[in-house]
């Protein structure tokens, strides 16, 4: 085996990757999103989706929801590194498979087609709480809420029916039941 010409060690085997959802409560101040996102890019972590908005105007708190993948060790690191940031108040971390947590994404779909095809589309959307936001003779804009993979499937499925434009949010999450994350 040829010796690696490096002053650094060779990468070791990678473990199994899990998908996790992080919910981060931060002070809503300039640069805070850059700090969180910069932590991910700077340390080579991956962001699948991101959603952020202020949730408490009085306390000036924003809630950031990040979907990421990593080995258990990396997931642990992400959590601990996030907690070290000065404007971060608390960090929750859920496995995607976690039954106690609700995950949802929203998508706006614009379909340009003849009436029949549009109706077919709306039928397909039925499972995902469709709301028709705009309708003309030739088009419809429909809002659906679902899981990521369902929206993926829908976009694929609706393409032949005249789906011309998709706009999606990142996932947001909330625990079931009366308890809140402390």
């Amino acid at each position, binding site marked *: 085996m040829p*010796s690696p010409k490096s002053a650094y*060690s060779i990468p070791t085997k990678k473990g199994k990757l899990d998908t996790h959802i992080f919910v981060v409560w931060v002070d809503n101040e*300039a640069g805070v999103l850059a700090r969180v996102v910069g932590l991910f890019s700077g340390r080579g972590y991956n962001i699948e989706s991101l959603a952020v908005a202020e949730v408490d105007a009085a306390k000036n708190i924003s809630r950031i929801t990040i979907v990421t993948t990593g080995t258990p*060790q990396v997931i*642990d690191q992400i959590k601990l*590194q996030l907690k*070290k940031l000065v404007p971060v108040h608390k960090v929750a971390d859920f496995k995607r498979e976690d039954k106690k947590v609700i995950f949802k994404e929203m998508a706006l779909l614009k379909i340009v087609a003849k009436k029949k095809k549009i109706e077919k589309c709306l039928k397909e959307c039925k499972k995902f709480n469709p709301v028709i936001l705009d309708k003309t003779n030739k088009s419809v804009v429909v809002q659906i809420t679902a899981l990521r993979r369902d929206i993926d499937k829908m976009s694929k499925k609706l393409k032949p029916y005249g789906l011309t434009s998709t706009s999606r949010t990142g996932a947001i999450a909330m625990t079931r039941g009366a308890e809140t994350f402390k």
Partner: protein
Amino acid sequence: MSKLYTGAEIVFKCLEDQEVEYIFGYPGGAVLPIYDELKNHSSIKHILVRHEQGAGHAAEGYARSSGKPGVVLVTSGPGATNVVTALTDAYMDSVPLVCISGQVPTHLIGTDAFQECDTTGITRPCTKHNWLVKDIKDLSKVMHEAFKVATTGRPGPVLIDIPKDIQFAKTNYSKFKKEKKLNGKIHNKFSQNEIDQLIDLISKAKKPVVYTGGGVINSGPEASETLKEFVRLIGFPITSTLQGLGAFPGDDNQFIGMLGMHGTYEANNAMHDCDLLINIGARFDDRITGKIDEFSPKSKKIHIDIDPSSINKIIKVDLAIVGDVNEVIKSAIKKINKKQNGLKDSNKQRISKWWEQIQKWRTKDSLGFINSDKEIKPQHAVKRLYELTKNQDTFITTEVGQHQMWAAQHYKFNKPNRWMTSGGLGTMGYGLPAAVGVQIAHPDKLVIDIAGEASVLMTMQEMSTAVQYNLPIKIFILNNQYMGMVRQWQELLHEKNYSESYSEALPDFVKLAEAYGCKGIKADNPNDLDDKIQEMLDYKGPVIFDCHVDPNENCFPMIPSGKPHNQMILGPNDKEENKITGKGKSLV
């Protein structure tokens, strides 16, 4: 109505309240109001550097040798970008720095104004936290919080960017009250149960080793005393990382030398073969662990650290205690003394075989080298420097490279805060400005920068600072005309293709010293070495000592890349043995 103060005045009021005595800086357009205010505050002395990187490293030297945060003041744009290397260095080595940078007036931010740059954007990944102050009312709060963030928990650098109009704007200032309450980001809540587990593991170990790092130094001088008591009590061998040197006396028999890539044979083998590893304030850096998969394979591992994100980052441990090193060890000592008085003796019996094994490794004399009477060997030069300075309280800084490793191997430190070196970032050019900062903190002590000729040229301009403030720093250059560590790697890994690692057209360092207005001494004969070193030590002023050493010397022992601790390359003394086993050769 209470008196109104300008932003510039508030900056100094905060610095006074934080008991800052020195700031290292360089003026420029966007900080002129602050510089103008300097004259009204006699308790704060400004040290004018020659390059902002120098200000950062000087503040690091000041902080690491005094335990107080270092304060840096620079202008916008190039002033701020020049200090980025020093901030990153401080971030990697956990040094508390507070950097104040000027910024263009708020209404010009984002217009590509003269000397504008996105300072908080650029420094975000290399500071613990940073602030752009856009409202004068926030200034004093931000200033005080900056000191708190920099100095609490795992220390590190912070930056406050103050636009010029904010420096002129006026508001009132309320007296600062020092909080006793701990900040929410500090983790010092270990449980007695964890201490019990620690003692249980200690009492069962047959082949233990204690591995300490810079965290012990950062925990304060008391932590080193506590560590000494703890290690003597349990009787275990102790090794240290580069940054931890001095926390435990280097000439003590329980100390088995530095570990890692250029650590001793006994320390690295002890790490590999041990059954209990107690990491105190270190972070399993890749220069320490070697190959991760084969790192200390048979041991239970304990990690004591104040930074929760250091736990399980690289090496999974069996017991993690998150807390201040001093507090954790103190409560462990208390518990041992209270409940398990017999531990002291029973431990010594149980681990006596282990000590025998360590003595065997020690006989390898892995730091040995073949001395010469014709050329000065760099190791010999460091050893002589140690012998001639060990009887006084000496502070050593270094640059980065072979000379740094030789200094770490052959200079023995008995007290904390006496050893300032760039470990994490490995910044060539660190040592000279750091020595300036150390000398500022300790005006009557001996401060030596053990340097390489390539590194020291990177920040040589700071000699001018040393001369201006009459700082008697000694720059001890091990001049081998190569970027020695680069040359060594090229020899070992790249078939001796010494691509661009030879330093052509080096300056005459004696003349250079004279040009700066200090003393130059050159040594190239081993027989004169002691006299010349003595001449350097006797001179009351800054000295550049140009020590010409064997250009072909390599730094051994060494763990080659991707190898575990028990597969080291030893020095030339050991070549005979290597031929027999063939082990050393196959590793290169």
